């Protein structure tokens, strides 16, 4: 059998196309939720550094928990499958997004805020028209960190029956199916590098367009 035949056979036997779709589905949901929650929390606390610090301390502790151990704690509440996987992704990814968004919103140079006030913008207008756009480059680099986290955790979801590309990896290891391991690992690795690359391009574009830092 040629290499291509082996790959094709692994691909069909392990339903890699289906697994990839499941994988990216969980990835997208988790990423969107993380961004929404992370940015919202940052908006809620940006004018209150003390409150922000409490949040960051709590999230920091969550960040230290091994992914599998976090799964274990979510299982009794959310059961097996996609839900605990997505929940874990979000719990890990809020911190990088929220911290970067907070830094971006709270540390806009005072002169811009002064000018905005001087031309008569309200606090909310300043948030929407000045702070948020200026924080975009920082938020996007927080999102890039989250992309890498979520890719990793969604892959682990295979271990708790969430489907996705962790399934062929686990099957390959349990059955000592070397071709399956190689194909699945390289495919997951490629996806990880690819999405990080996309995120990097977006981050770079934004940073180049307006980098107030």
């Amino acid at each position, binding site marked *: 059998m040629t290499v291509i035949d082996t790959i094709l056979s692994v691909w069909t036997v392990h339903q890699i196309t289906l697994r990839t779709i499941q994988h990216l589905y969980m990835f997208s949901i988790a990423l969107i939720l993380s961004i929404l929650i992370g940015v919202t929390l940052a908006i809620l606390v940006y004018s209150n550094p003390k409150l922000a610090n409490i949040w960051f301390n709590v999230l920091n502790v969550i960040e230290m928990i091994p*992914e599998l151990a976090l799964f274990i704690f979510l299982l009794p509440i959310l059961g097996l499958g996609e839900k605990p996987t997505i929940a874990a992704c979000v719990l890990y990814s809020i911190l990088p997004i929220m911290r970067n968004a907070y830094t971006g919103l709270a540390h806009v140079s005072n002169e811009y805020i002064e000018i905005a006030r001087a031309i008569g913008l309200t606090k909310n207008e300043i948030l929407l028209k000045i702070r948020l756009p200026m924080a975009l480059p920082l938020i996007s680099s927080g999102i890039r960190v989250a992309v890498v986290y979520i890719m990793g955790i969604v892959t682990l979801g295979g271990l708790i029956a969430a489907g996705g590309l962790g399934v062929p*990896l686990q099957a390959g290891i349990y059955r000592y199916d070397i071709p399956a*391991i190689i194909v699945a690992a390289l495919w997951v690795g490629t996806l990880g590098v690819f999405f990080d690359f996309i995120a990097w391009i977006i981050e770079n574009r934004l940073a180049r367009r307006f980098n107030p830092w």
Partner: protein
Amino acid sequence: MVALAPLFDAILQHLTLVFTSLAIGICLATPLAIFSVFYKRVSYVVLTVINMVQSIPSFALVAIIVPLVGIGFVPGVVAIVLGSIVPIVKNMYVGLAKTDIALIDTGKGMGLTDLQIVRYVRLPLAYPAIFAGLKFSAIIANGIAVLTAIIGSGGLGRIIFEGLASFNINKTLSGAIPAILIALSLDMIFSIAEKKLKSKSVY
């Protein structure tokens, strides 16, 4: 509940995995970082490779170790080193490379050799960055050490996987809780070590 003796063994095994990997990680990262500071091309290659490795899901790293190294304790360590070395190299490099040029200049002007500048100027000023990297790396190592149980490295992950397979929540918790406590103490250990080192005289 689970018997205490096997749990104790698992914790010990887990700590051995984590600390062996960290030690190897530091030994590999230090020369890489120092070379990167002095040679632009090396730094470019190292940073590119490292950024790519960082974006590969840890499960894929652990899995790909099987065809390359096999299964057991050593492949486990290899996987952990691979997955956790990135923040050490990155932070060490950034910490050492970003030193104020004026300080390097005076150091040279005073008659310090390049290595003495690393030892007396760059390194102590990079401590905060380096320790942040070490802390992060230890946390990641602890996480991957749980995962490497799937390729037979032993440790607390084994108890978790056994518990998952038999739907025994108590068993999974008896693996997960020590793993979390280890993570928290690693964070604390490195914070304390940093303070100790900082309060010491530079020479």
